[in-house]
């Protein structure tokens, strides 16, 4: 399910806090799903939409920081930490690991909602970038091995003749390859192809 309706996940072991936050976030028109523990959150199926996670630092079992570490690997949503008695080392660690905000309980509704908006916006951008890159990868996957060999020389700005010399083949063959590459990658111009290669982390040939 792909939707642009952002969703907010709340993970807190205290049901009172879960209820209060769900109600507050819902009151500004956002979708909210609350979970009692990190495990519960991880196990749940989540919609493919921009999201953010409001996470209690202290949780029974895996703590908030643990969950953050777990999500950092994949394309987890941005995290807003809330804590009953946040100490400085925990907050530093949370922020370093990419948390959007660190809110000590009790917090004002503006602070929380602002953080949620920012987080969702961030997530939306990230999601878009991820989608584009995936598209590029899909194109790149269409290239033959020889074409992938040729690509770095093309993006390095070498003429077909030079490339043919480097690879020990004819200029015409290289020209055919180049055309195929441009076509398969969907690049309108060489500059666009160079950008694509850059995003795909394909280094130009030296």
């Amino acid at each position, binding site marked *: 399910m792909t939707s642009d309706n952002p969703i907010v996940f709340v993970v807190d072991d205290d049901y009172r806090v879960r209820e209060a936050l769900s*109600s507050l976030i819902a*009151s500004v028109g956002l979708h909210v799903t609350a979970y009692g523990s990190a495990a519960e959150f991880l196990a749940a199926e989540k919609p493919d939409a921009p999201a953010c996670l409001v996470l209690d630092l202290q949780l029974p079992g895996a703590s908030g920081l643990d969950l953050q570490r777990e999500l950092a690997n994949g394309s987890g949503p941005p995290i807003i930490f809330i804590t*009953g*008695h946040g100490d400085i080392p925990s907050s530093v660690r949370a922020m370093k690991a990419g948390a959007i905000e660190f809110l000590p309980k009790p917090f004002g509704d503006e602070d929380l909602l602002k953080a949620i908006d920012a987080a969702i916006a961030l997530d939306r951008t990230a999601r878009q970038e991820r989608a584009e890159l995936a598209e590029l990868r899909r194109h790149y996957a269409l290239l033959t091995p020889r074409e992938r060999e040729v690509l770095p020389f093309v993006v390095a700005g070498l003429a077909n003749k030079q490339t043919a010399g480097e690879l020990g083949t004819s200029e015409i063959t290289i020209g055919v390859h180049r055309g195929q590459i441009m076509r398969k990658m969907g690049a309108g111009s060489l500059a666009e192809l160079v950008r694509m290669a850059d995003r795909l982390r394909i280094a130009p040939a030296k």
Partner: protein
Amino acid sequence: MTVFSKAWRYGLAVISCGLALSLAIRLDSPSSCFFLAIMMSNLYGGKGPGVLSVLLSSLAFDYFFFPPKYHFWIQPSLYPRFAAFLVPAALIVVVVEAKRRAGEARREVDAKYRQVSEDALAQAQKSEARLRLIIDSIPVPAWSSRADGSADFINQRWLDYTGLPLEDALGWGWKIVCHPDDLDRTMEYWRSVLASHEDPELEARLRRFDGIYRRFLFRVSPLRDESGNVVQWYGTCIDIEDRKRAEEALRASEHQLRLMVDSIPALVTTMTPAGDTEAVNERLVAYTGQTPGELKNWTEKLHPEDRAGIADRWRRSVETGDPYETDERVRRADGVYRWFHVQGLPMRDAEGHIVRWYLLWTDIEDRKRTEEALRSREQQLRLMVDSIPALISIRTATGEIETVNRQCLDYTGMTVDQLKNWPETVHPDDREDAIAQWKDAIENGNPLNNEVRLRRTDGVYRWFQARALPLRDTEGGIIRWHTLYVDIEDRKRAEEALRASELNFRLIVDSIPGLLCTNTAAGEIELVNKTLLNYTGKPLGELKNWCVIVHPGDLPAVMSLWSRSVATGHPFSAEVRVCRADGSYRWFQCRGFPSRDVDGRIVRWYNLLTDVEDRRNAEEALRASEYHLRLMTETIPALVWRTTPDGEIDYVNRRVLQYAGKRLEDFGNNGWLQLLHPDDVDPTFRKWQQSTRTGEPHQVTYRLRRADGEYRWFDVRGEPLRDSEGRVAEWYGICIDVEDRKRTEEVLRSTQERLSVASQIATVGELSASIAHEVNQPLTAVVSNGNACLRWLSAQPPNLGKAMEAAERIVRDGKDAGEVVRRIRALFKRAAHEEVPLDLNDVIVEVLSLVRSETEKRRVTIETELAPDLPPVTGDRVQLQQLILNLLLNGIEAMDPVTDRPRRLFIRSGRNSEDMVLVQVQDSGVGLKDPDGVFDAFFTTKENGMGMGLAICRSVVQAHNGRLWAASSDGYGATFCFTLPLQLSAVS
């Protein structure tokens, strides 16, 4: 000779012819020269040489003188001349030959005549010499004398015998050799002979040349002339000395024989060939007491039983001539019969006829008896040999068994033949030795003496002592061996037992932990045991003078005691210090006992020295200890008492008397109760009675009145002293003045309470974060709900339902927050100690709710196992909450460093026993190094801890009559446990 003579004669002819030739040539007169030669040759050589010389002369004539000279043929003219020569020559030969023959015949007659006369003379001379030789050589001195008796010839024999020269002997010289005693008689005889002309004989002695006189028989015979006158006397002297002597000897011998026959200790008779008694010897006469005549009927003298048989046998011997031999009894003169051995031998003449019987009667009575005795003794001996309990065997010189006694057969169960192979009966281990020893004995003739095991008939081997002695003949050669095997099995065993026993004794003597010595009756050391030698380190020789090992300080006393004991024989006992090998002295108890012989004299002293050094030291120590104990009892700052098993006081120390200002008698009959505070009398007396009844230790606290009337608290404890059967023998007790302690405790308690409060405050600080969290949670909910509520309300259109829900949640969460605050307040409330019935599980749950955020923060899992039906305890809720809180926090903190395992806090509650509740708090932390030390005040492992927490916990538990302890858990972590008594109603 004849050849030589013939050659000579012919040679003479040749030579004379040669001479004649040479002369003839010179003289030129051949005829005369040759005639001469022919004559010479013929004269001295005989006819042959004469003819030869004629021939030679003829040849010489022919050759040299007749022409032609030097040729052997003669001119015929010269034949006459030659003939003239030959004829005379022949004539000469004939004449000279005749002449020579006549001369020879005459010479021959002369010689014959002369020969005959010479032969006659020689014959006469030879006859005379022979006669003289005969006379001289006849072995009889002989002589002749003239008619008047004077000797005119004496033969050489006579001269040789007497050694007289012939001249001296002739005439009357011979008288000199006549024995002086016989001379007169001889002369008389000679005269008578001369007068009577008869020729009798005379015996007279003549002196031999060496001076010995020998007897001679003189005989003379006269030579008469035709007229019958005696012309000459011829005499001989015959040596009769030897014959005389033989006669004398014979006479003496016969006499001796007679004497012998009469004196030999046997009866002798001679019998006629017909068997009759001929002669008897003196002894027979003496024995029978009968005359020889009466003995004709000798058979009557025999024992009636023998008579017939003997007579018979004699008759048979007489008839056959066989030697006669019997044993017979002959009656003595006194009528006693004695045994005689009779031997009779016949004497035969040359023709073999029996001339006479000789009977010899030998008295064998004694021999018979001896034989009898011998026989009986041999029987006895045999019996003895067979019955002595030993194995006896007789062996040949080479060791072969000849005979054995019955015991030998019985023991081995073998026959004599089987025993020939005697080594089989010897034990295999001893066999080789036994055989070798036997061999040695046989070879060297040494007596054998060894010990061997012999197999009994049942196969059992027993020890035997073997002795073998050789029996030797007079030359010392071994005839046989006598061996004796004596069963020494039992002796061996006894010896071994004895040896073992002796060894045991020796071991005992050497191993008893005392010094032993024996002294002579005079007191000198004789023997000591090894322990003594080891102890003193001196050899026995040096110990003879035992004074050297006694401490000089003890010596005089010991010497006098010892000499008195030796003198009187009383047992000796003293304590002395004896010098050890290392020079140090130790105390010994010395006891000596005399050993006496049957007469009561002391033979030896037996002394035992027992090391009493340790005992003495122990005694000293005991004495000192007792003294110190008494001193201690009297001086310790406590009241000490002792009672009989039924509780009657029989001793109190001086402090009791001083404290109470009473005398010991005042305590009797429960008088001590009057000293107690009136409020304490009853419970104390009850407890005391229970103790004396059951024997349980007595423990009580009461107030005791001092002499000045002030009551002071005493902690009293009494313990029973039990005898070996477990019965109470005495009660010992002590009263310790705890008045000051009691007061101190009061102070302590109040201090502790204050400290507890301080600790509470510290805990508040420590828990502030947790508390904040507890409060913040509902607060966060309240604020968020409040905001939500506002937003729902301010929404267009307002969502009243949602707003309502939020408002309700606000109320609910506000209450929650209030409850939290209340609990916290209750926990830290400073309230007076208040004991109420409590459910410990409630308290635990309450405290857990407080630390929940703390455990979450520290990633600690809390597990509980709370007994559902836990009975209530009595206690102060706040203090117990504090106690549990402290233990939980401790456990949580202990797990801070743990990263390699789950941080797990485990709380369990339950009944420990009938009247106790047990609570355990177990962590998986670092554990405890000193489980007891943690309860000490100011013990801490935290950087900024006060170290009061657990000390306070313990005092809290103790204040609740419980117990708190800690232990390291299995593996890791620590466990804190406390017990609390149940509420009394719950117990019942």
